[in-house]
Structure formats: structure tokens, C-alpha cells
């Protein structure tokens, strides 16, 4: 502990022991504290605090420290988790401070950011953590005042005995409370009594973020630390020869190390490494499939006709339905590989000290980082500590620990603390992309325009299951066949915000729009009819909540004045993913004969909204993300490498390219059901369907910008 405490010149990290011996690491900005502010430091609070459970500590002064175990990458969990604890505790939010907890399997469960799962997973235990502490405080207060516990009430860190007018602060009874046995069962609040949940509590890191404090992994420095950058091979290639003479000659470079298929350049600061990397001469040779986008397009098209598809779901008799159909509609949709491109490139700090390892940095899955480090070094995982910094975005990329292992590999080889930094070019070309996928949809309509058959076949390049066979419209169609084909590409892939559904939803919602038009039905009515079918006479299992989906469809249609203004061309889309339901309407107005995308209306059912500001961020951000990538995102491969290597050629959506976004929530009364991802999938479909409504052009591939149907549209995007 001591050796970590005196880590570096700028006090990036301090460690404090709680009174019960618990150990927590907090970012402690002693050098930044204003002398005028008489606020206890986090360390001072902790040193006096009693560690009630894994989530919070309370000091005799009434200061509350709440630990947020999950990595924070912009989903606002570091604010919303503590809000839930503070709610049940009845804490005074102004006296709450929040600390990022390190990886601790004993204290915390699922310390992971992914799958929009943190809040649904932890909702109840967070509430229990707060309620348990409150119960103990109340018990101690009842003992002290010699009154019945039921006669006490709490509010903002105070305990009141109304009959006698007596009151106590939490701090006054915390010592006595910490001696008590925790109850096995505690009562949780009725949601209608919430005073913190449902209010727009501000991001707990605002002051630090907006004054430039070192919060992120890339901001971590330690005295004596070396820097490293890694040269990785193109996909499907291996190193033939390395000439590092010129790289080594760069002032500030201390070492160039080749291991496996990598070359690490090590030095005393970042810039010399960037220079040296450009001078490094590495010759590669083929080691399998050296692929190009040209190959990928061919492979996906060919495999769509393969006889070896894996049947993922089969209901009724599809062949019969298509044979008897009055009309058959078939369309194919395709999406490219995409990088995650978080603003903070991959980086990590590692210090391998013999059999022990210290890891610090931005990771969505500290547990995987530790497990893989343990495996790599052949040491027990207990010998490895992981501290989680704030993450400058993740989008799924930081679920992979490759860049953590970079740091571990270099640290053990140079026997020093090392921070590995990926350049933007490394980040963009380093793999673990959203997989490229091609879909073929077919629908069979009867003479009345009812969809009596539905087929989906997906071909993904390292996509695993690209079809999500139990999603809508499965359950709503009597005859259905969903098949998957996976091709093992040398291009590496990984979860990318709303994995698979980030593209599948666009393809499916666009195709259903095509089917509705062929059936001569309003697209909203068409979907509602299908859902009625799933409710009244379901086929097979129905793995979504029909009423919740209907709820958001109706809300979005109503608030967008769906179909009521002939000057506004609208596109509809709805999707269920990560336990939540989101419907969206895109509005295009024809102004001087030119389509102008002016607004997206979103209706979301994510259960209880914990923090409206955070929720709006996730919905708007998901829509902006979905829109930007649908319109611009493209990664074109040549000789195993993407052509796009930085933001000059890989276009990310900017300020002037976002329309007005209207956000609303349907109050279904469910516990929170996830929001980091669900708003993204419907967006591409809503926009593509609006473009069709406005222009008659159907966009069946992404990015839209590179489709011939789009190139001369001059779609303008305007707010207000």
C-alpha cells in the first residue's frame, strides 16, 4: 500500500484505509484543491469513515462516500449508481462524494460496462446497500433516543423523532450504527417517494472534467514511467523482417523490442515514439487471408446463397407460405466494418514487479484485463490490482484487453512501469471492429396484404450470430425462417455499441417499411397489426414485451403527428434491444425541392428513468451515433489494412450535422432496463425510411453517403 501511495509527483492516486480496514483507491487532487475551500479531502473523509458495505462509507461528520464500481465511459453510471444508493439512504446529496472503486471481486459484482446492463443488474443491490445503511442508522438512533424505530423518519441525512422534536444527524449515530448487525431483509422505498431518482443530478466529475484534471487513462503518469507504442501487423500478415536502426536513432527512444508479431518502441515520452514509429521499417508476409473490401463484398454475396446456413429459428412452414403468397418481396442490405473510434485512443499503464502486477487505465472490463494478464504471465490473479480511470469513450472497444496486454508485455520486458499509447492511426487500424454483415430479407404477403411468411438470412464476417432470431417480428409471423452464416475473416471484430442490432435494426426496419408499402399499409399500422398478432395468436416464443413496444410506437406516432402533415415526409422505426424499447420518427421537409432532415422524435421505454439528464444524453447521443455512422461510417480494406486511418478520411458526425431531437419516455413502471445502447439501433431505419418517403430512393447499404441513391440528394440537416 505504502509503495503505491507515494506514486508520483502529481498525486494522481492516493489510497485511504477505512476504519474497518477496507481499502479503496481514489483520485485525489491535492494539488488542485483551492486553499479557500474548506472541504474535507476524500482521504480525510475516508479515514474517519465507517465502511458499511461495498458501496458506501459514512463519516462522523456526516460525509458520505459512495463507491461506483463500474467503469464510467460516458454512460453516466458514476453519477446514477450513487444516486440510487443515496435515494434509499436518504442522504443529503450535497454531502455525497463519489469514488471510482478499483476491481474487487469480493466487494463488487459485474464490474463491467457493456450490454447496457449495469443498472438493470445492480438496481436492487444498490437500493439494498442504501436501505441497509439507513436501517442501521435508524436502529442506532432508536437505541440512543430510547424510542421505537417506527417513530423515526429520515430526510437528507437527518433522523427525526417528530413526537419529541428530537433530531440526530447520520454522523452522530454512525459509530454506534457500525457496531450493529446488518439486517437480512430491508424495506425499499415506494418509487413514488423517490426524491433523488428521477431528478437531473449533475455529473459528479463535472468540475474535474471542465478544468482539465487528470481523470482519464491517458492522463496517468508516474515518476520513472516509460512510454511505449506498438507496431501491429496488417490483418492476415506476419513479420518477415524488422529494420529498427533509424527508429532507434530518434532522441528519446530507449528501446525497440520485437515480440510475437509486434514491435514495441519504448522511450521517455510520447512524441519520440510517434516519430520513431514512422521510421520503423517492418516487412510483412502473408499468414492466411490477406483480405480486401472487394473480397468481403464477394464473399458475403456468395455466402448468401450457401447451402450451409445454420437455422436459428423456424416457425410454421415457410416454403408453403412463400409458394402460396400473392406477393413476395426480397431485399438485401449491407453494412461495412466500423472502428469504435473513441476520442481517447487505447492506452494502459502496467507495472510488472516480478510476480505482482499493477494495472491502471481505461477498461470496460477490468476483470478480463486481470484474467488475461494472469494467463499471460502465469501468475495468480490475486497478484494483480486493477484501478479504473475514467474512459474517454468505449463503445465496446475497451471490452477487449489487447492494449492492456501490450502494456504488460512491454513492462515485463523493460522491467519498468510502462504506459502504452495507441496513436489514432493504431486505434483505427488495430482491429476489433463492428463486423461487416450482409442480410437477405424475404416477405410473403397474402392477397389481403398480411405478412404470412418472413425469411432472414445473415452473412457476417466474424459476426458470430448476426441475426438475433428471437427479435421482432419473430412471434408475429406464422411462417418464419431465420438463418445465420458466419465467415471467419482475418479482420478482428468485437462488440460495437448495440452489437449486431446497430445494423440489423436498420436493415429490418427498412425492409419492413418496404413490405408495408407493398402491402399498401401505413408503416405504423403495419407494425401495430403485427404486434397484435404476436399478442393474440403468437407463433413460437415471443421474447419481447408486446405492450411496451406498442407503447413506444403509439407515443412516437402521436408526438410526431405521424401522417398528419403532408409537407413533412416521415420515416418510422422501432426496436427492442438491451431490455428497452425505442421508437423513432425522422422528419424530412422538402424546402426548395431539397430534402431537409429537421427532426427526430424518439420515444423510449427504459423503465424508471434514474437521471433524466443522463437518460437524455444516452438517447440523443445514441441517435447522433446511429445517424453519423449510418451516413458516413466506412472502413475500406486493401491488403489487410483499412484505408481510413484518421479523422481526415474517417468521417465522424459533427455539430452542424445533427437535427433537432425530441426525447420522451413512456412510463411503464418497470425497473430500469438499460439505456446505453437501445436508442442507437432504430435511427438508421427511421432516417432511411424518411428519405424514401421524401424521394422514393431506398438506401440498402451503409454508409448512405457512398450510395449512388444518396450522392445527388443534397440532403441537408438543419436544426430549428
Amino acid at each position, binding site marked *: 500500500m505504502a509503495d503505491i501511495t507515494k506514486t508520483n509527483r502529481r498525486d494522481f492516486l492516493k489510497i485511504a484505509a477505512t476504519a474497518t480496514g477496507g481499502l479503496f483507491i481514489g483520485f485525489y487532487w491535492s494539488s488542485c484543491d483551492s486553499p479557500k475551500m474548506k472541504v474535507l479531502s476524500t482521504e480525510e473523509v475516508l479515514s474517519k469513515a465507517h465502511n458499511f458495505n461495498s458501496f458506501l462509507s459514512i463519516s462522523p461528520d456526516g460525509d458520505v462516500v459512495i463507491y461506483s464500481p463500474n467503469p464510467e465511459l460516458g454512460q453516466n453510471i458514476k453519477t446514477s449508481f450513487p444516486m440510487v444508493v443515496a435515494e434509499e439512504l436518504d442522504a443529503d446529496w450535497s454531502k455525497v462524494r463519489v469514488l471510482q472503486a478499483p476491481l474487487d471481486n469480493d466487494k463488487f459484482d459485474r464490474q463491467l460496462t457493456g450490454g447496457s446492463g449495469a443498472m438493470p443488474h445492480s438496481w436492487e443491490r444498490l437500493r439494498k446497500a442504501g436501505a441497509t445503511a439507513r436501517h442501521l442508522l435508524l436502529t442506532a438512533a432508536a437505541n440512543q433516543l430510547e424510542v421505537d424505530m417506527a417513530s423515526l423518519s429520515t430526510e437528507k441525512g437527518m433522523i427525526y423523532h417528530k413526537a419529541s422534536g428530537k433530531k440526530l444527524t447520520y454522523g452522530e449515530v454512525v459509530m454506534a450504527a457500525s457496531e450493529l448487525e446488518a439486517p437480512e431483509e430491508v424495506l425499499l422505498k415506494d418509487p413514488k417517494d423517490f426524491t433523488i431518482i428521477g431528478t437531473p443530478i449533475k455529473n459528479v466529475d*463535472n468540475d474535474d472534467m*471542465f478544468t*482539465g484534471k487528470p481523470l482519464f487513462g491517458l492522463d496517468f503518469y508516474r515518476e520513472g514511467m516509460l512510454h511505449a507504442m506498438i507496431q501491429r501487423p496488417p490483418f492476415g500478415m506476419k513479420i518477415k523482417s524488422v529494420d529498427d536502426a533509424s527508429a532507434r536513432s530518434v532522441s528519446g527512444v530507449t528501446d525497440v523490442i520485437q515480440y510475437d508479431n509486434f514491435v514495441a518502441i519504448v522511450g521517455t515520452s*510520447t*512524441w*519520440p515514439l510517434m516519430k520513431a514509429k514512422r521510421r520503423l521499417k517492418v516487412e510483412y508476409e502473408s499468414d492466411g487471408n490477406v483480405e480486401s473490401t472487394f473480397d468481403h463484398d464477394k464473399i458475403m454475396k456468395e455466402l448468401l446463397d450457401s447451402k450451409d446456413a445454420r437455422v436459428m429459428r423456424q416457425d410454421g412452414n415457410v416454403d408453403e407460405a412463400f409458394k402460396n403468397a400473392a406477393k413476395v418481396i426480397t431485399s438485401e442490405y449491407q453494412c461495412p466494418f466500423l472502428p469504435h473510434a473513441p476520442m481517447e485512443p487505447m492506452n494502459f499503464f502496467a507495472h510488472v514487479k516480478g510476480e505482482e502486477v499493477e494495472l491502471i487505465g481505461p477498461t470496460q472490463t477490468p476483470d478480463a484485463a486481470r484474467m488475461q494478464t494472469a494467463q499471460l504471465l502465469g501468475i495468480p490473479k490475486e497478484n494483480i490490482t486493477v484501478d479504473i480511470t475514467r474512459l474517454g469513450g468505449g463503445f465496446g472497444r475497451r471490452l477487449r484487453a489487447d492494449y492492456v496486454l501490450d502494456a504488460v508485455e512491454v513492462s515485463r520486458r523493460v522491467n519498468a512501469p510502462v504506459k502504452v499509447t495507441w496513436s489514432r492511426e493504431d486505434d483505427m487500424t488495430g482491429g476489433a471492429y463492428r463486423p461487416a454483415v450482409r442480410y437477405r430479407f424475404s416477405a410473403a404477403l397474402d392477397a389481403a396484404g398480411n405478412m404470412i411468411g418472413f425469411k432472414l438470412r445473415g452473412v457476417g464476417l466474424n459476426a458470430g450470430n448476426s441475426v438475433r432470431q428471437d427479435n421482432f417480428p419473430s412471434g408475429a409471423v406464422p411462417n418464419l425462417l431465420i438463418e445465420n452464416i458466419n465467415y471467419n475473416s482475418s479482420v478482428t471484430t468485437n462488440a460495437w455499441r448495440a452489437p449486431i442490432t446497430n445494423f440489423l435494426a436498420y436493415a429490418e426496419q427498412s425492409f419492413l417499411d418496404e413490405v408495408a408499402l407493398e402491402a399498401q399499409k401505413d408503416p405504423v399500422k403495419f407494425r401495430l397489426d403485427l404486434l397484435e398478432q404476436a399478442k393474440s395468436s403468437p407463433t413460437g416464443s415471443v421474447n419481447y414485451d408486446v405492450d411496451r413496444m406498442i407503447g413506444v410506437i403509439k407515443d412516437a406516432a402521436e408526438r410526431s403527428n405521424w401522417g398528419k402533415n403532408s409537407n413533412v415526409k416521415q420515416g418510422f422505426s422501432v426496436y427492442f434491444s438491451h431490455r428497452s424499447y425505442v421508437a423513432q420518427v425522422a422528419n424530412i421537409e422538402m424546402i426548395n425541392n431539397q430534402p431537409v432532415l429537421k427532426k427526430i422524435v424518439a420515444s423510449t421505454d427504459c423503465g424508471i428513468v434514474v437521471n433524466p439528464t443522463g437518460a437524455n444524453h444516452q438517447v*440523443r447521443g445514441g441517435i447522433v451515433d446511429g445517424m453519423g455512422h449510418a451516413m458516413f461510417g466506412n472502413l475500406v480494406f486493401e491488403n489487410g489494412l483499412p484505408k481510413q486511418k484518421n479523422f*481526415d478520411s474517417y468521417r465522424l458526425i*459533427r455539430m452542424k450535422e445533427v437535427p433537432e431531437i425530441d426525447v420522451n419516455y413512456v412510463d411503464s413502471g418497470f425497473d430500469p432496463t438499460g439505456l446505453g445502447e437501445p436508442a442507437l439501433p432504430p435511427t438508421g431505419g427511421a432516417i432511411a425510411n424518411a428519405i424514401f418517403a421524401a424521394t422514393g430512393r431506398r438506401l440498402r447499404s451503409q454508409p448512405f453517403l457512398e450510395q449512388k441513391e444518396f450522392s445527388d440528394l443534397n440532403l441537408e440537416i438543419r*436544426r430549428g
Partner: protein
Amino acid sequence: MANYNLRINGKNYEVDVEDDTPLLWVLRDHLGLVGTKYSCGIAQCGACTVHINGEATFSCTIPISSVGSDKVTTIEGLSENADHPVQKAWKEVDVAQCGYCQAGQIMNAAAFLKKNPKPSLEEIDNAMNRNICRCGTYHKIREAVALAAKTK
């Protein structure tokens, strides 16, 4: 290697670095001013925005040899007590998601509003278009710049 005397946030610094070292890496690696962020390194995203003599500038492509006696302001030096109108607006509007780009956004907005204290929304969009936010906080950025302009 050469010695450079720099004027940053009203303080004098002396560094010994290669001539071509970008200001960004001098700030981050040599002076411990890590609020200025690295993201693209090619003047495309704005995460590294600082003020040079009051002008919003991408520090990732400015070699230290060209800084001379110019006055550099970083996010750490924008205000004494985090109370620059733009910082206050950013807090009030609760702009950030991941937060990584926001120091650059704030620096760009602060320089812009100094030149154009009463901008139209369109002017705000134009000015802020040079900074990328991968999380998509653009609506909030726009709202915060507008708020800062009114509250100045």
C-alpha cells in the same frame, strides 16, 4: 534538443525538447498539463485546443519551435476557480458524456465568445463544428455556448 522558455497560463516554463515536438506533447508529457487532450494528432478533432494569444489553436500540430514568446492558455489556466462563464455554462447545462473532448470544446467556445459575444445559433454551430464529440453531446454544447453568451 533545445531549451524553450514558454509562457503558459501566466507562468514561465522552461523545457528541453526536440524542435519538432508539438505543443500538445510538451504540455502533457513535460509540463504535466494533461487537460489538453490527444485524440487525432492531425488537427482534425479539436480535443487539443488551446489559446495562443487568445486564438483557439490545435496544439497537436504546433511545433514547440514556433511558439516563441506567444501566450499560451490551456484549460487549466482558463480561470482561477473554474468560474469562466463557459465553464459555468458547461456545468449548468451538464454537457459531458465521457468528457474527453470537453476541455477542447470549452477552449474553442471561450475563444469564440471573446470575439463574438452575442452569436446567433448558426454562428455557434459554425464555430463549434471544428470540434468532434464522439458521444454526440452537440445539442448540449450548443445550449451551453448560448447560455454562456447570455450570462456574460
